[in-house]
C-alpha cells in the first residue's frame, strides 16, 4: 500500500488549506479592521455633533450648515458601511468579528439618528426621517427585500429624507428594542416615516409623495 503517498497527500492538503485559511483570516481581519476604524470615526464625528449642540447653537448659520453637511456625509458613509457589513456577513468565515462590528455600527447609527432628530428641531431642517426595520432571518425576505430596494433606489436621487436601518428583534442587542417600543413596531418589514408607522409594502409613487421626492 502506498502509505507514504497518502501521508504526503494529507500533509500537503492540510498545509495548503491552513496557509489559505491564514491568508483569508488576515484579509478578513484587515477588512473588518477597516470597517471598525470607519465606524469609530463616524462615531467620533457624531459625538462631536452632540457636543457642538450643547455649546454652539447660538451661531445657527454656521452650526446648522456644518451639522447638515456632516449628517449628510456620515449617513452616506454609514449606508456604505451597512452594505459592506452585509456582504462581509454573507461572505466571511469570521462571524464573531462581524457581530462586534455590527453592534458598533448600530450604536453609531442610533447616535446619528438621535443627532439628526435634534438637528431637525434646532435647525428647522425640512428633511424626513425614515427608520427601516428589517429582518436578519428569512421571515421577511420578500417584503424587506422590496422595501430595501425602494429605499436604496430613492436615496440615490431624492435628498429630502435620511434613512436609518435597524434589524427587528436583533437577539444580541437590545438598544434597537427601545426604538421598536417607542414607535410600536411589531414586525420586520416596517417603515417609520417621521414617527408614523407603515407596516406594508407601498408603491414607489406613494413613497415619493410621502417623502417629498417629486
Amino acid at each position, binding site marked *: 500500500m502506498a502509505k507514504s503517498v497518502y501521508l504526503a497527500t494529507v500533509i500537503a492538503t492540510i498545509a*495548503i488549506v491552513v496557509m489559505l485559511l491564514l491568508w483569508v483570516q488576515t484579509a478578513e481581519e484587515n477588512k473588518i479592521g477597516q470597517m471598525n476604524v470607519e465606524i469609530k470615526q463616524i462615531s467620533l464625528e457624531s459625538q462631536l455633533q452632540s457636543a457642538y449642540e450643547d455649546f454652539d447653537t447660538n451661531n445657527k448659520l454656521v452650526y446648522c450648515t456644518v451639522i447638515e453637511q456632516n449628517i449628510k456625509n456620515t449617513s452616506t458613509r454609514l449606508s456604505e458601511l451597512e452594505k459592506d457589513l452585509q456582504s462581509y456577513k454573507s461572505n466571511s468565515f469570521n462571524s464573531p468579528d462581524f457581530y462586534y462590528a455590527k453592534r458598533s455600527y448600530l450604536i453609531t447609527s442610533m447616535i446619528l439618528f438621535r443627532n439628526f432628530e435634534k438637528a431637525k428641531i434646532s435647525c428647522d431642517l425640512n428633511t424626513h426621517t425614515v427608520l427601516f426595520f428589517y429582518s436578519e432571518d428569512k421571515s421577511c425576505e420578500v417584503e424587506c427585500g422590496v422595501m430595501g430596494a425602494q429605499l436604496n433606489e430613492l436615496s440615490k436621487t431624492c435628498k429630502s429624507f435620511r434613512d436609518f436601518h435597524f434589524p427587528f428583534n436583533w437577539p444580541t442587542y437590545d438598544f434597537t428594542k427601545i426604538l421598536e417600543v417607542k414607535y410600536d413596531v411589531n414586525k420586520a418589514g416596517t417603515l417609520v416615516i417621521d414617527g408614523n408607522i407603515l407596516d406594508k409594502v407601498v408603491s414607489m409613487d406613494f413613497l415619493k409623495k410621502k417623502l417629498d421626492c417629486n
Partner: protein
Amino acid sequence: MHETLKLGLKDRALLFILFALILIILIFVSFCVSNNYLVLGFNVLFIFTTFFYLMLFLNKHNAGKAKPPTKFPLITVVIPCFNSKNTILECINSIKRIKYPKKVNILVVDDCSTDGSREILRKIKGIELLELEKNCGRSVAVNTALKQVKTEFVIPIDSDSYPESDILMKTMGYFDDASVASVSCLVLPDKRDSLLRKIQTLEYAVSFGLMSTLLSSINSSYVVPGPFTIFRKKVFDIVGYYEAGNMAEDTEFGLRMKNHSMKLMNCHEAVVYTDVPNNIHSLFIQRNRWCRGGTFNFIRYRKLLFNKKNPDFGFFVMPFLFILQIFVVAVLARLVLFMSYDLFVFLQVMFRYLSLGGIISFDMAAIVIPPSLIFFVAAYTLLTMYFLVCFWEVKYKLKLDELLAFVILIFIYPYFVSFTYSQGYFKEIFGVGEAWRRVST
C-alpha cells in the same frame, strides 16, 4: 435493442439511502455554518484529489512508460462490428500496420450489420470473419469470438478505433511480469475538428493517460477500455467473458478482474485513436451510460470495498471514488435546491418591486469577491498544474487553438459532466432510462 441489466430493488434502495444521507448532512451543515465552509469543504476534497495524483506521480514517475517485449507470443485481435462500414476498413488497416515480429491474427465478428459492413468484410483478405445470424450486442459478439481464440494473448478492439503501429512494441513487455493480466493504453480521439472533440481530446489525454497509469501503479486501475486492451487469454478462462446487457461492460470486466486480484496495467506511451461524440446530445448519452454503468457495477462489486486483497483499491480508490460520485450528485442537488429557493425569492422581490414602480439600476460597487474564492483559485491552480503534468507526461503538445478547449475543460466541462452523471445516477436509482445504446467507446 438489447435487454439492459438493472439494479435490484435492494441495491437501488441502498443507493438512494446513501444519496439521501449525504444530502441531509449537507443541508443540515448549510443551516449551521456559513456557505463558505461548504465551499471550503468541497475545495479541500478537490485539492486532496489533485494532490493525491501529483504525489503519486512524484512517487511513481517511471510508471506507464513503453516496455519493449523480450518474447513475441501469438496475438489475436478481435473486432466486433455492427454497422461500421465507415470505420471498419481503416480499423483493420491500422491493425495490419502494427509492427510485431509475428503475425497478428484478426478475427472480425459481424453482429448482423445492415449497412453493408458484412459485404465489405467479406472482401477483405487476411482476416477471419464470423457472421452472427442476429444482432446480439457488443458483449455477445466479442464473447463469441473470444471462445474461438487459441493464441496466448487477445485484444478486443472497437471497430471505430485505430491503434498506432508501435503499440505492441511498447506494451507487450509489460507481460514479462507474469502477474500482469491486461495492459491498456492511452486512448485519444481520432479527430480534433471541433471544439467539443478538442475538449474531449484533452480530457482523454488526462484520464486515459497519466491518471490511468497512476491508478495502475498502485494496482487500482479498474477499467479495460474498449478501444484497445491486451489480455492474457487465460484471463477469460478464469473470470469468464463479458457480461451481456451491461451498460459499461469494460468497467464490469475490470472490476471482475480486480475481484480475482488481477493486475491491470496502463501504458500511456502507446496510443490508440477512437471515434468520440461530436455533439452535446451524443456526449450526454455516452456519459450517462458511463455513469449508470459505473454506478451499477460499483454497487454490484461493493464486496471489493475494504477488501484486503486489493488494499489501495479497496481502502482508498473505490470508497473515495464511490463517495465522491454520490457527493458530487448531492452537492449539485443541494445547490439546485438552495439556488432555486434564492432565485424564487429574488424573482418575487423583483416582481413586486417593479410592479410597484421600482426601476432597476446596476451598482458595480455591489459586486463582492468572496474570500472563499481563494480556495477555488488554489484548487484550479493545482488542477491546471496536474493537467499540464499529464500533457507533458503523455507527450501531448497543447496547441494555441486548444487553449479555449482547455479553459472550458477546466472551468465548464466538469459541471456538464457532473450534470450528466447526476441524471444517470437518478436513472439508476429509480430504475428508469433507455435500453442499451452504445454511442462510442
